[in-house]
């Protein structure tokens, strides 16, 4: 699967819409710099959801990284980009 960074972030937004218990508006304004815990208030269960859904959606495995090592949406996108390339 070949995707550019913007497409990856769009897909992540789609996933986050289900993961984060907040309103549409906030998800719409998500960017690479949005912090997963500080800005979106994701809990540990939300993070687990994000990881599993991302693996399913992109067909990759988070094999060499802990769930808490991601700060921002951009960090997740970077990781996916590396895995896809």
């Amino acid at each position, binding site marked *: 699967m070949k995707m550019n960074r913007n497409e990856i972030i769009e897909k992540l937004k789609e*996933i986050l*819409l*289900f*993961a*984060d*218990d*907040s*309103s*549409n*508006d*906030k*998800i719409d304004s998500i960017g690479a710099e949005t912090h997963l815990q500080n800005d*979106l*208030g994701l*809990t540990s*269960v*939300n993070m*687990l*959801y994000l*990881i*599993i*859904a991302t693996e*399913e959606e992109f067909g990759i495995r*988070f094999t060499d990284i802990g*769930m808490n090592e991601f700060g921002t949406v951009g960090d997740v996108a970077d990781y996916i980009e590396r895995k896809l390339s």
Partner: protein
Amino acid sequence: MIAETLERYRKYTGEANWQRIRHYATVTEMWEDRSKEYADRIAIRDNGTDYTFRQLAQDVAAFRSVLKARGANRNRIALLMPNSYDLVKAFLAVVTSGCTAVVLPAHLQEKEAFGTKMMFDFSMLVTNAPEKGALLQQKFPDFPVIDPAAQAEEPSEAVPCEGKDGCAIIMTGGTTGRPKGALLSHTAVMQGIINSALGVSETFDQRYLLALPLSHVFGLIRNLLAALNTGSTMMICRDNRDLFRDAAMFRPTIMVLVPALADMALALSKKFGKNMFGDSLKVIICGAANVPQYLVEEYHKMGVSLYPGYGLTESANLVSGNPENLNKPGSVGLIFPEMEYRIENGELWLKGKNMMDGYVGVQEDDAYEDGWFKTGDLVRIDEDGFLYITGRIKEVIVLPSGENISPAELEARFNCLPVIQDSQVFEDQDENGHRFLALEVVPRAAEVAKLGSIDINAYLIGELQKINAGLPSFARVSRIEVRTSDFERTPSMKIVRYKKCQ
């Protein structure tokens, strides 16, 4: 009152299952009997390896020798390691050696391990992380820290014990939130195991996928020990990130879950248009926190029966389970047979075989009154005998009018809207010091997404106001706010309650 629910449970459990239930006096007897009965079956699958009941029994007998050589003799032995075959083996070895297993949460570090020794007075520690025992050994020279992989040449026989003897000490915040241990006798744990076999037809010969820590009664009793007692196979999910890959491979028929995990799995299943736990899954036993009706209904649409239940560490897990989950979706079910209960000023008091022998490591005299354990939970029972949790005593708001409000009871009403994920009712005050009830809600994003481009805030407040208007006038909230982020949560995912009017 004694819960006279035996015949009803018999019906829900099914006669064939009912005939297979045995009332052992101790967990040791249960293990000795069941491990022979199911010898050739797979008991545990962990880390790619299958272990039969026979193999597990041999490994348990060998580990009893290891413990004996280090001084096991009707004393307390702590276990500190993540969910694994080794933890299962060590737990059974401790218990069948006539000792009491102190099952510590795996995340405890060196200092905390030392602290728990001061609280629970255990004589040795079994851990796969010897560095966590370093401080203990520094303060108590020769303190045995044992590797769960340690081998012995000869097996040792199980040490017979009695029902009143200690079986396990499980850590809990209890009804007051201070950490302590609940001392559970063999009788109590065995009753918890028997209760686990009641109320659903999917009881014996199941496939369990373990996703909860074994240091919690829900994981230890309702999952592990229930599986061993019923000839079921239990696969250990070592990392929750692998939960659905493990499920795809193992094809569980039953899962024991807390609501947060069940909710997450539901969101994923909806997003990807398939049951993420696989099509073999028939039953989810859900508890340890308030179970929203929404989960019962949504899982039913996927062909899975989600049964809410109610239990405490102090009651060796189960007090009630809901076999009529579709007819009574807001209930935590029927109280298990022969449990003694009383409702005093709305609070549930309990007595019975499954109750703990008391707390260890802390003096809590007010946990009991006249021999009854006071749960701190506010309940009601309907005309069919079904139990409903309406709140916690400590959370009750006494209004200026003298009227009592249980926030959880009101929240349950608002949470009935599928578009509401969670809510909190609390007392607030205006600048003049007038107190009033307020409501904050967290919308359920997946449902909000379905609404399209309408004014979500206005829509939600409109829907919530309709429910509000149906409440007794003194219980209506005067302010409603839609949050854009989740509530602050405790480590066990419970909402941290606001305290605005102290």
